[in-house]
Structure formats: structure tokens, C-alpha cells
């Protein structure tokens, strides 16, 4: 089936999210849509899936114009979508989820759902592509990678000829990503057309047959997978970018930050952090890698005092941090960049200037005798926004008027505006564009070079690689192992799934993942460049 977008335009008020988009998706082809966050990729797919009505242009299926009033129309036309956040009912079985919305009923059962038929459908698709999915498993018990397969089965069971995958690798380990890539290739061989939405250059080069790059709502170019990451990045951002962070080897100082025997048991009784110990030296970046939900976020929250520990100890400069209020911990010199800037890092309706003093508002020089000085708050904002290159109209505008990257710069500017004894940054570049990532990484390295111990919590291996001097991999609340910053991604990936270090190294040597191979190639190429 051939699917074509012809001149699609979609506006949200004054914002043109899609501007005269022309794209053709051929069957049996993996077509990557590459673009930064906010470039308009998801908007376009939502138009294609009938969720948004376009303001202009038309959609053609096999050269015949179609109009989708809703997802049901799109599904009937053979378009399936796997959303970034899965649309599954956790307490239903795989079979129940797959048939949800078009349940087979049997006359013999008096109109009840024919679960036998549902199971048969799941098994049939699962067998055809070697998915290995149990139709009777509860979705909530399945790992994320398998849940994603359930989504794919769901789409295929409705005879999807075009499968849209929206940032499908965001939640996967490298090994799971590899499996997904294999599935994508298999589907392609079966004639399915795959639209692969992503901002990850590496993946695009590994699987795509064709690449369309979207920037600011427009298709700015097409590329082939043999173009270098550097070239793709420039196309995506619109200028040349520096993908790696240039950093000198760490000048390690004393151990000033220590976590020992830390255990956190949540109200339900789960050990979210299980007897965790590590040390961080001054002047080094210690990255905590792991798949989302293995206790890393909780670790950051315990350090700052937002979450109570059950037992253990956390010391900074020899002083115990556990049991102290957030304000006390911040006063002890801890800078904290929370995982989710919009809920925890910023107050959307407050001005940029106010957000820049959110945790400093009661300190000199901003407050005197209980009274705030708007002039000093504004002065501070002017200095900080200039230093951190925050693009803004006025420091008195609500911080919500800024782009994600600039919002994150506001958080960093605030946290780095006082002398730090420790910096804890959770997912410091989540949702940022390449340019902002570059900036944020540089600032974090600068902070390290100033002698601050830095703890980075990140689920993005690229980020961990770019920043870390040492990497701890967390799995189910425990540290699987602490490894050097340049450890190969295949090893890290296996450790993220709970495989101990030695086993991980052994099996990673035996079998490289697609992305891992790309990595090795890139490294060899780089070292060759250096030698010549």
C-alpha cells in the first residue's frame, strides 16, 4: 500500500506545526522521520492517524484521496500506530488488549467475547513473526519491550499495511532495541510499510531505507542511511553541531560524597532502592544508567531529601544528609536538576526571574527582613540568562513561554548560580534539541572541572557515554556494577537487564547488537582518522 501526504498543513493558533508537508511512504520500506522535539513529527502522524484534522492538503491511499474523521477510519484504511506511551490496559491479558475495540463475538456464547478466537489471532501473528508473546499473560506483568510487541500485534491484527512507530526506542534497552529492529526488518520483508519517528541518529542509520528530515514543521531534506551522523545532525538542527562533548580526563580529588547501605522501601513494601553503596570523588562525573523505573529517580530524590530512606547513610563532606529537609540539603551545597522540569523544576506561571530564585528567594541579597527585592531578583535574572544564553523576550514573562531547551537552561542557571558541593542532575537533557543538549553537557563538564562531584541519572546511553567518567548500572534498586566511562554499549545494555559485569562482557563479545556494531565502526573510523 502506498501512502502519500500532499501539502499537509496544520496550525495551532499562530504556530504552524506542519507547513506544506509532502511525503510518500512506499510499501516494504522503512521510512525514518528524523527531527528534533517540537519539529512537528508527531503532529504530522496524528494528522495521518485521524486524530487531527489538517488545515490544508490531502492524504492519498494508493493515489486515491481519503479523509480520516478519526483513528477508526485510519485503521480501516490500513494504518496502525504504536504510540510512544502505550495504549494498553494493564490489568487485561494480551489477547484482551489486542481485540479491545473490535472484539470477536460468538453466537454460541450469546454475544460474549470469543476469547478463544482472540487468543488464536495473537498466536497466529506472534508465530508468523516469532514474537514469543503469551496471549494469556497480563500486560502489567510484561517487560516494556514485550508490551511494545503487543502494541504491534494489535496494529497487525487490524491488517495494518502502514505501521507508524512513534519514538519506539525511547523506553527500550539496547538489546530490546535490537530485537525491535529485527522485527521492523521482518515486517518490511512481509511488505508492511514502516514509518519510524525518532530523533536518534544512530538508529536511523541502522535501519532506515529512506530518511526524511523535518525541522520547524517543514520537510527540509531527504537523506540516505550512508550519510554520516554529523551530516544528519546538521540537517536536523540547521547548523553544524558538535555531537560529542570535548572533555579532558577528570582530575579526581577526594571522595566527598558517599552513599552507604541505602535502602528505600516504598509504602507498598517494594524495595525501590536495595542496599546501595557508592562513592563519588571531587571533579568526576558519576553516571547512573539503567532502564527507567529501576530506582534511579528515587535515588536522586532521596539524596535531595524529597523521599525518606528506610535505612543507610548519605554523607556529603562528612555530614549526614539523610533526615534533613530539602532546604537544609540545598543549603549544604547540593544543586538538583529534577527529572521532570515542568512539574518539579519550574513553576510555569511564575516569571523567568522568579523561577531563577525559586530555591534562593529567602537568601541574601534577594530577601531582606522578610521582604523580597524585585530589583535584585531582576538583576540576577539578567545576569544568569545572559551567562546561560537563555533566548527570551523579557525576564518578566512566564517561564512557560520558553522552549524546552531554554527552560532547562533556566533550571541549570539557577542550580549552578551558587557554589556547589555536589550536583545531582536527573535526565538533564530529556526532550531537548541537539543544540541545547550540547550546551547543557558543556556546563555540566565545566562544573566538574571546577571540582564539584557530579551525579548524573540518565536512561540515555548516548548521554551517559558523553558525560560519564564512571558508570554505575542500576537494576531493580541495586547497582549491577560500576564500570569505566567508555564501556561498550552492548555491555551496558546487558547490565541494564540485570546481567552481571563478567557475563555481560562475555556475551557482548559473542554477539554485537546492530547499534553496537555501528558504534564500533564509528570508533574505528575515528581512531583511523586520528592516526592518519
Amino acid at each position: 500500500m502506498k501512502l502519500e501526504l500532499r501539502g499537509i498543513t496544520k496550525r495551532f493558533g499562530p504556530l504552524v506545526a506542519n507547513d506544506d508537508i509532502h511525503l510518500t511512504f512506499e510499501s516494504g520500506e522503512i521510512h525514518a522521520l528524523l527531527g528534533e522535539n517540537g519539529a512537528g513529527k508527531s503532529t504530522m502522524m496524528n494528522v495521518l492517524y485521524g486524530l487531527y484534522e489538517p488545515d490544508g492538503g490531502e492524504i492519498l491511499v494508493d493515489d486515491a484521496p481519503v479523509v480520516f474523521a478519526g483513528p477508526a477510519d485510519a485503521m480501516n484504511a490500513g494504518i496502525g500506530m504504536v504510540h510512544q506511551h502505550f495504549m494498553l490496559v494493564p490489568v487485561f491479558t494480551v489477547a484482551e488488549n489486542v481485540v479491545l475495540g473490535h472484539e470477536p463475538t460468538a453466537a454460541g456464547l450469546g454475544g460474549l467475547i470469543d476469547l478463544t478466537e482472540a487468543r488464536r489471532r495473537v498466536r497466529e501473528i506472534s508465530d508468523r513473526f516469532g514474537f514469543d508473546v503469551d496471549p494469556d499473560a497480563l500486560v502489567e506483568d510484561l517487560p516494556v519491550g514485550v508490551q511494545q510487541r503487543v502494541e504491534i500485534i494489535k496494529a497487525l491484527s487490524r491488517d495494518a499495511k502502514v505501521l507508524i512507530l512513534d519514538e519506539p526506542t525511547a523506553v527500550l534497552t539496547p538489546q530490546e532495541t535490537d530485537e525491535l529492529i529485527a522485527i521492523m526488518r521482518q515486517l518490511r520483508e512481509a511488505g508492511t510499510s514502516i514509518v519510524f519517528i525518532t530523533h536518534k541518529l544512530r538508529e536511523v542509520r541502522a535501519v532506515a531505507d529512506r530518511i526524511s528530515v523535518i525541522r520547524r514543521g517543514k520537510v527540509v531534506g531527504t537523506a540516505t542511511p550512508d550519510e554520516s551522523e554529523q551530516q544528519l545532525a546538521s540537517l536536523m538542527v540547521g547548523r553544524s553541531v558538535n555531537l560529542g562533548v570535548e572533555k579532558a580526563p577528570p582530575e579526581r580529588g577526594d571522595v566527598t560524597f558517599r552513599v552507604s547501605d541505602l535502602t528505600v522501601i516504598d509504602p507498598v513494601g517494594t524495595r525501590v532502592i536495595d542496599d546501595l553503596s557508592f562513592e563519588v570523588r571531587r571533579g568526576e562525573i558519576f553516571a547512573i544508567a539503567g532502564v527507567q523505573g529501576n530506582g534511579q529517580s528515587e535515588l536522586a530524590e532521596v539524596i535531595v531529601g524529597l523521599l525518606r530512606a528506610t535505612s543507610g547513610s548519605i554523607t556529603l563532606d562528612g555530614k549526614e544528609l539523610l533526615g534533613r529537609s530539602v532546604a537544609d540539603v540545598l543549603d549544604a551545597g547540593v544543586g538538583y536538576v529534577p527529572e521532570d522540569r515542568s512539574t518539579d523544576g519550574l513553576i510555569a506561571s511564575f516569571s523567568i526571574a522568579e523561577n531563577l530564585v525559586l530555591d534562593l528567594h529567602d537568601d541574601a541579597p534577594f530577601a531582606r527582613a522578610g521582604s523580597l527585592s524585585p530589583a535584585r531578583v531582576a538583576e540576577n535574572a539578567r545576569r544568569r540568562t545572559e551567562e546561560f544564553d537563555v533566548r527570551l523576550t523579557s525576564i518578566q514573562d512566564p517561564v512557560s513561554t520558553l522552549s524546552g531547551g531554554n527552560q532547562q537552561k533556566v533550571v541549570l542557571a539557577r542550580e549552578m548560580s551558587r557554589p556547589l558541593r555536589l550536583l545531582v542532575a536527573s535526565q538533564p537533557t530529556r526532550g531537548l534539541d541537539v543544540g541545547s543538549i550540547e550546551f547543557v553537557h558543556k556546563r555540566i563538564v565545566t562544573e566538574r572541572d571546577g571540582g564539584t562531584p557530579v551525579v548524573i541519572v540518565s536512561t540515555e546511553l548516548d548521554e551517559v557515554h558523553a558525560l560519564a567518567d564512571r558508570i554505575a548500572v542500576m537494576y531493580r534498586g541495586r547497582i549491577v556494577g560500576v564500570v569505566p566511562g567508555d564501556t561498550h554499549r552492548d555491555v551496558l545494555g546487558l547490565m541494564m537487564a540485570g546481567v552481571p559485569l563478567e557475563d555481560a562482557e562475555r556475551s557482548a563479545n559473542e554477539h554485537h547488537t546492530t547499534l553496537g556494531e555501528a558504534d564500533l565502526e564509528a570508533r574505528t573510523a575515528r581512531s583511523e582518522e586520528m592516526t592518519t
Partner: protein
Amino acid sequence: MTATESLVAPSAAPPPAPAPGERRSYLQQVLDSSWVTITFAILMALVASSVLIAAANAEVQAAAGYFFSRPGDLLGAAWSSVFDAYSTLFRGAVFDYEATGLRRVRPITETMTASVPLIFAGLGLAVGFRSGLFNIGAQGQVLVGAAGATFVGITFALPPVVHLVLAVLAAFVIGALWAGIAGFLKARTGANEVIVTIMLNSIAFYLVSYLLTTSLLRQGGSRPISPAVAQTATYPLLLGPGFRLHLGFVVALLAAVAVWWLMERSVLGFRFRAVGANQSAARTAGIKVNLVFVLVMLVAGGLAGLGGAAQVLGTDKSLQASTAGSIGFDAITVALLGRSTPLGTVLAALLFGALRAGSPLMQTSAGTPIDIVQVIQATIVLLIAAPPLVRELSLVHRLAALFGYKSQEARS
């Protein structure tokens, strides 16, 4: 790449992302109503009420009986009934052009007098609303404050200024403590402040009713009404004995200025607003959210208590269980109408004071039922509170339709 694009600064950010924390509370949305919406709501309320005014009018009803033979009569009668009602409302509340001498300006001073407790209680609620606390308990806080002021006013014999200050302080402290119960329970146990303050309203009413049967507040006499407070404890009249306007009005305006300073310029107010706008960001920034809950309720209750003091020390001079009337509930509308800003609250309180002051004349002289004022107030509330509510409902509807698909914004 097009020519225009190359002109753009190289690393300029992508178009602004949707505001973070789009999940704003219903309360925040109501408070964000624009002045245009509010003015429109007031006008619409007057228009809607005029239909009821006409329908309740005897001449209009008579003319409706022969509508088809002489339709003009009905329209004429309707017009004159509405005109009479609103013009007498104006004469009763602002300026009585049919009176002579100083009596002509007496209505506006009555409006100001009636607005005093509404300003105080409205300010208290506004502080709570800005801080994310939906305090419904102004009614009880006004009443216990009034009781505190009365107790000091009838029990002690003190020199003029000292006595008044002490009585007012007592009202503030008791009102603050009363509301503080709700703040404390919320901070300690997470008890919903809406429910706790509503229950505290009932407790306050029956507590004061009971106290009015004891020697603490009644001191002789058989009716459940306190003796008049000592002259030394009353708010002095501002314009002499012909007018009821008292010093409490000035104190209320000063309180509005104080609340402005508290919310816009003080460290404490910064924390209040931070907690109101985004609790988790406030907590992450080291603000003690639970402490803020308690402090907000203390301030809110104290201000409402001052409203109760103004009622007994300025207007009524003695306490009954009904002293608070509907002040505490009207104050909710006042605070919402004023978008919880001090200036807005004062203006909204004056509007409601005018409706209170003008409605008796409207009833006696134009024959319009006094209840129409309630209708006007209720319609204003509906029109201001409904738009976000309607938005919310339609959003929920859409969410359901999309099978849980929640993004309505451009993102990729």
C-alpha cells in the same frame, strides 16, 4: 533551505513548547478569567435578572394576558419594571437623586459600610485561593472572630483606642486559630480543606449559638443576643452620626494593601504563591509545603476574623448567631470575582455591598423582590465559574473519545 531560514539565528530554539504543567487546577483557571469575562458576567447577570424582574411584576403579568391584541403594552410594562428596579437599586446603593442635601450621598456610604466585612473575608479567601487552598470556611471564621471581638468588647473596661485594638486583635487571633485547625489537619493528615472548613462552619455556628446562652457572651437578658459592646471598643464613625460608615472601612483598605505586599513583595507570599502554582516544584525548591498550608490558613482566618470584628464593632454593635449572615459565602464570590487580587477583591466587595445596600429600597419602592439580588449574585458566579468547567468537561469528553490519547498540542 530557504532564504528566510538562513536569517534566523543559528541556534534559535524551536517554536515555544506548550506551557509546562498544563494540568492547571480548576481554581487556577477560574482565577485566570480575564477582566473582560468578569465585566461580561456582571452585565449578563443584570440582563438575565431583568427577565425575572419583569416576570415578577404585576403589571407585566396583566399585560401578558392580552399580549396578542396589544403587544406594545407588555414590552412597555416590562421595560418600566426593569428600569424601576435597577434605578431604585442605584438610588439605594450609589446616589439618591430624589433625596435632598447630604441624604443624597448616604447610599454610597451604606454600600461602603456593607462592603467592609466582605473586603476582609474576601481578602482572606483570596490569599487561600492564590496559595491553592479552597477555603470555604470564611463563614465560620467571621463568626468566631465576631465572637472574640464581642467578648473583649463587653467584658473589659479599657481606654478607647486600647480597647478597640484589643478587640480587633482578639478577632484576628481567634479567626486565625479557627482556620488554622483546617490548615493543621491538611498538613498533618492530608484532610481536604474544603470538607474540613465546611464542617468548621457548622461547628462555629452552633458553638457561638451555645456561647450566646452562657454568661460568657450573654450576661443577662433572655434573647440569644449579646449586650452592646462598650463604646470604647467600637469603630469610630467616619462621617458623623448621620452615616453608619466607620473606621473599619479604612482598616479594610489598609488590609488590602497589606495583603498586596504580603503576596507580591514578601518572602512568605512568594512561598504561598509557589505552593499555589506548583506544589511539587515548591517542595523541590526546599519550601516546606505543609508549613505553608498552616500559615496560609492562619492568615486567611485572621482576615476573616477581622471581617467579623468589623460587623460587631462597626455596624451591629452586638453579637447574634446570625451576625455573619451570608458574609462568608458571598466572600467566596467576591474573591473569585476579584480574581483573588487585593484591588479586585475590594472592587468586587463594593459591588456586592452595593447590591446589599440597594436592595431594600428596590423592594419597598419598586416592588421588586429582594431575592433578585441573590439571583444576580448566583448568575455572576455561574458565568465566571462555568467557562473553565465547561472547558474541563469537553476536554474530558475528548480524552475519552481518543481512548486515552492525551496530547492536544503540537509535539514530536
